[in-house]
Protein backbone atom coordinates (compact mmCIF):
# COMPACT_ATOMS: atom_id res chain seq x y z
CA UNK A 1 0.00 0.00 0.00
CA UNK A 2 1.47 3.35 -1.03
CA UNK A 3 1.90 6.36 1.24
CA UNK A 4 -0.94 8.18 -0.47
CA UNK A 5 -3.34 5.29 -0.10
CA UNK A 6 -2.45 5.00 3.57
CA UNK A 7 -3.03 8.75 3.94
CA UNK A 8 -6.47 8.42 2.34
CA UNK A 9 -7.44 5.60 4.72
CA UNK A 10 -6.18 7.56 7.74
CA UNK A 11 -7.95 10.75 6.72
CA UNK A 12 -11.19 8.83 6.15
CA UNK A 13 -11.00 6.98 9.44
CA UNK A 14 -10.13 9.99 11.56
CA UNK A 15 -12.80 12.17 9.90
CA UNK A 16 -15.47 9.56 10.64
CA UNK A 17 -14.25 8.97 14.21
CA UNK A 18 -14.29 12.70 15.01
CA UNK A 19 -17.32 13.94 13.12
CA UNK A 20 -19.87 11.14 13.42
CA UNK A 21 -20.08 11.73 17.21
CA UNK A 22 -19.90 15.49 16.60
CA UNK A 23 -22.92 15.63 14.31
CA UNK A 24 -24.74 13.00 16.37
CA UNK A 25 -24.37 15.28 19.38
CA UNK A 26 -25.94 18.16 17.44
CA UNK A 27 -28.67 16.01 15.95
CA UNK A 28 -29.90 14.77 19.33
CA UNK A 29 -31.17 18.12 20.66
CA UNK A 30 -32.44 19.03 17.18
CA UNK A 31 -34.91 16.15 17.25
CA UNK A 32 -36.41 17.84 20.34
CA UNK A 33 -36.64 21.18 18.53
CA UNK A 34 -33.62 22.47 20.44
CA UNK A 35 -30.20 23.52 19.20
CA UNK A 36 -27.11 23.95 21.47
CA UNK A 37 -26.31 27.43 20.16
CA UNK A 38 -24.33 28.48 23.22
CA UNK A 39 -21.90 25.58 23.32
CA UNK A 40 -21.51 25.03 19.61
CA UNK A 41 -18.40 27.16 19.01
CA UNK A 42 -16.10 25.36 21.49
CA UNK A 43 -17.45 22.02 20.29
CA UNK A 44 -16.78 22.95 16.66
CA UNK A 45 -13.29 24.32 17.35
CA UNK A 46 -12.44 21.30 19.47
CA UNK A 47 -13.54 18.84 16.78
CA UNK A 48 -11.63 20.63 14.03
CA UNK A 49 -8.51 20.90 16.21
CA UNK A 50 -8.73 17.22 17.20
CA UNK A 51 -9.10 16.09 13.58
CA UNK A 52 -6.22 18.29 12.47
CA UNK A 53 -3.85 17.08 15.18
CA UNK A 54 -4.73 13.41 14.68
CA UNK A 55 -4.30 13.58 10.90
CA UNK A 56 -1.02 15.50 11.10
CA UNK A 57 0.44 13.07 13.65
CA UNK A 58 -0.75 10.01 11.73
CA UNK A 59 0.52 11.26 8.36
CA UNK A 60 3.90 12.17 9.83
CA UNK A 61 4.11 8.69 11.36
CA UNK A 62 3.39 6.88 8.10
CA UNK A 63 5.68 9.25 6.20
CA UNK A 64 8.53 8.26 8.51
CA UNK A 65 7.76 4.57 8.06
CA UNK A 66 7.07 4.71 4.30
CA UNK A 67 9.35 4.97 1.32
CA UNK A 68 9.66 8.48 -0.09
CA UNK A 69 7.59 8.35 -3.28
CA UNK A 70 6.46 11.53 -5.05
CA UNK A 71 2.99 11.44 -6.61
CA UNK A 72 2.96 9.81 -10.04
CA UNK A 73 0.38 9.92 -12.83
CA UNK A 74 -1.82 7.23 -11.26
CA UNK A 75 -1.88 9.12 -7.96
CA UNK A 76 -2.83 12.32 -9.78
CA UNK A 77 -5.56 10.54 -11.78
CA UNK A 78 -7.10 9.04 -8.64
CA UNK A 79 -6.85 12.40 -6.88
CA UNK A 80 -8.52 14.21 -9.78
CA UNK A 81 -11.42 11.74 -9.80
CA UNK A 82 -11.80 12.03 -6.03
CA UNK A 83 -11.87 15.85 -6.15
CA UNK A 84 -14.41 15.77 -8.97
CA UNK A 85 -16.82 13.52 -7.01
CA UNK A 86 -16.30 15.59 -3.85
CA UNK A 87 -17.13 18.75 -5.77
CA UNK A 88 -20.37 17.22 -7.12
CA UNK A 89 -21.38 16.19 -3.58
CA UNK A 90 -20.47 19.56 -2.07
CA UNK A 91 -22.22 21.65 -4.71
CA UNK A 92 -25.37 19.53 -4.64
CA UNK A 93 -25.73 19.10 -0.88
CA UNK A 94 -24.88 22.70 -0.04
CA UNK A 95 -27.37 24.00 -2.62
CA UNK A 96 -30.11 21.71 -1.28
CA UNK A 97 -29.21 22.60 2.31
CA UNK A 98 -29.21 26.34 1.68
CA UNK A 99 -32.54 26.21 -0.12
CA UNK A 100 -33.98 24.18 2.72
CA UNK A 101 -32.66 26.58 5.29
CA UNK A 102 -34.02 29.59 3.46
CA UNK A 103 -37.40 27.95 3.72
CA UNK A 104 -36.72 27.17 7.39
CA UNK A 105 -35.72 30.76 8.13
CA UNK A 106 -38.95 31.97 6.58
CA UNK A 107 -40.88 29.65 8.89
CA UNK A 108 -38.75 30.64 11.88
CA UNK A 109 -39.23 34.34 11.25
CA UNK A 110 -42.96 33.70 11.09
CA UNK A 111 -42.86 32.09 14.54
CA UNK A 112 -40.29 34.66 15.81
CA UNK A 113 -37.47 32.21 16.44
CA UNK A 114 -34.09 33.77 17.37
CA UNK A 115 -31.79 34.71 14.50
CA UNK A 116 -28.74 33.28 16.28
CA UNK A 117 -30.27 29.83 16.25
CA UNK A 118 -30.97 30.05 12.52
CA UNK A 119 -27.40 31.18 11.83
CA UNK A 120 -26.00 28.40 14.02
CA UNK A 121 -28.04 25.74 12.25
CA UNK A 122 -27.09 27.16 8.85
CA UNK A 123 -23.39 27.14 9.68
CA UNK A 124 -23.49 23.55 10.89
CA UNK A 125 -25.43 22.33 7.86
CA UNK A 126 -22.89 23.93 5.51
CA UNK A 127 -20.08 22.45 7.63
CA UNK A 128 -21.75 19.03 7.33
CA UNK A 129 -21.77 19.41 3.55
CA UNK A 130 -18.02 20.15 3.62
CA UNK A 131 -17.29 17.12 5.82
CA UNK A 132 -19.48 14.89 3.63
CA UNK A 133 -17.57 16.07 0.53
CA UNK A 134 -14.29 15.29 2.28
CA UNK A 135 -15.52 11.79 3.17
CA UNK A 136 -16.57 11.24 -0.46
CA UNK A 137 -13.13 12.38 -1.62
CA UNK A 138 -11.36 9.96 0.72
CA UNK A 139 -13.68 7.07 -0.16
CA UNK A 140 -13.15 7.70 -3.89
CA UNK A 141 -9.38 7.71 -3.37
CA UNK A 142 -9.48 4.46 -1.39
CA UNK A 143 -11.72 2.77 -3.97
CA UNK A 144 -9.49 4.04 -6.80
CA UNK A 145 -6.36 2.63 -5.18
CA UNK A 146 -7.97 -0.71 -4.23
CA UNK A 147 -9.47 -1.27 -7.71
CA UNK A 148 -6.13 -0.66 -9.38
CA UNK A 149 -4.10 -2.66 -6.88
Amino acid sequence: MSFREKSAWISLGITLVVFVPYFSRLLGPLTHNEFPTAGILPLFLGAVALQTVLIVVAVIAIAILSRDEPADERDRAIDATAHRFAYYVLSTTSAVALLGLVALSVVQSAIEAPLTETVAILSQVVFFCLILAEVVRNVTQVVGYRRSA
Partner: protein
Amino acid sequence: MEPSRVRNHIRRLRFEADEMTQQRLAERVGVTRQTIIAIEGVKYAPSLELAFRIAHAFGRPLGEVFEYEPEVAAG
Protein backbone atom coordinates in the same frame (compact mmCIF):
# COMPACT_ATOMS: atom_id res chain seq x y z
CA MET B 1 -11.23 2.94 -12.51
CA GLU B 2 -12.46 0.65 -15.30
CA PRO B 3 -10.32 -2.38 -16.23
CA SER B 4 -7.87 -1.38 -18.96
CA ARG B 5 -7.98 -2.70 -22.54
CA VAL B 6 -4.28 -2.03 -22.93
CA ARG B 7 -2.52 -5.35 -22.50
CA ASN B 8 1.22 -5.60 -21.92
CA HIS B 9 4.18 -7.97 -21.74
CA ILE B 10 5.98 -6.16 -18.96
CA ARG B 11 6.28 -9.15 -16.63
CA ARG B 12 7.93 -11.29 -19.34
CA LEU B 13 10.19 -8.44 -20.42
CA ARG B 14 11.27 -7.84 -16.80
CA PHE B 15 12.18 -11.51 -16.50
CA GLU B 16 14.16 -11.35 -19.74
CA ALA B 17 15.96 -8.22 -18.50
CA ASP B 18 17.96 -10.07 -15.86
CA GLU B 19 14.86 -10.51 -13.75
CA MET B 20 14.38 -6.78 -13.26
CA THR B 21 12.23 -6.10 -10.20
CA GLN B 22 9.06 -4.04 -10.27
CA GLN B 23 10.73 -1.54 -7.95
CA ARG B 24 13.71 -1.19 -10.27
CA LEU B 25 11.48 -0.64 -13.29
CA ALA B 26 9.40 1.87 -11.31
CA GLU B 27 12.52 3.85 -10.42
CA ARG B 28 13.72 3.83 -14.03
CA VAL B 29 10.46 5.20 -15.43
CA GLY B 30 9.63 7.52 -12.53
CA VAL B 31 6.53 5.98 -11.00
CA THR B 32 5.70 4.03 -7.86
CA ARG B 33 5.95 0.25 -7.62
CA GLN B 34 2.19 0.15 -7.06
CA THR B 35 1.66 1.80 -10.46
CA ILE B 36 3.85 -0.83 -12.16
CA ILE B 37 1.82 -3.53 -10.37
CA ALA B 38 -1.42 -1.91 -11.57
CA ILE B 39 -0.14 -1.69 -15.17
CA GLU B 40 1.06 -5.32 -15.20
CA GLY B 41 -2.26 -6.44 -13.76
CA VAL B 42 -4.13 -4.50 -16.47
CA LYS B 43 -5.81 -2.46 -13.74
CA TYR B 44 -4.43 0.84 -15.03
CA ALA B 45 -3.64 2.10 -18.54
CA PRO B 46 -0.45 4.19 -18.59
CA SER B 47 -0.28 7.53 -20.33
CA LEU B 48 1.38 7.60 -23.74
CA GLU B 49 4.52 9.15 -22.28
CA LEU B 50 4.77 6.57 -19.52
CA ALA B 51 4.22 3.77 -22.03
CA PHE B 52 7.10 5.12 -24.12
CA ARG B 53 9.33 5.38 -21.02
CA ILE B 54 8.58 1.77 -20.12
CA ALA B 55 9.32 0.60 -23.68
CA HIS B 56 12.53 2.64 -23.66
CA ALA B 57 13.54 1.05 -20.35
CA PHE B 58 13.38 -2.36 -22.05
CA GLY B 59 14.93 -1.10 -25.28
CA ARG B 60 11.92 -2.36 -27.24
CA PRO B 61 9.43 -0.65 -29.59
CA LEU B 62 6.14 0.37 -28.01
CA GLY B 63 4.18 -2.27 -29.92
CA GLU B 64 6.29 -5.07 -28.43
CA VAL B 65 5.49 -3.95 -24.90
CA PHE B 66 1.83 -2.90 -25.18
CA GLU B 67 -1.12 -3.99 -27.27
CA TYR B 68 -4.68 -2.79 -27.42
CA GLU B 69 -7.63 -5.17 -27.33
CA PRO B 70 -10.72 -3.42 -28.73
CA GLU B 71 -14.13 -4.28 -27.32
CA VAL B 72 -15.78 -7.17 -29.21
CA ALA B 73 -19.12 -6.04 -30.71
CA ALA B 74 -22.16 -7.99 -29.45
CA GLY B 75 -24.09 -10.15 -31.92
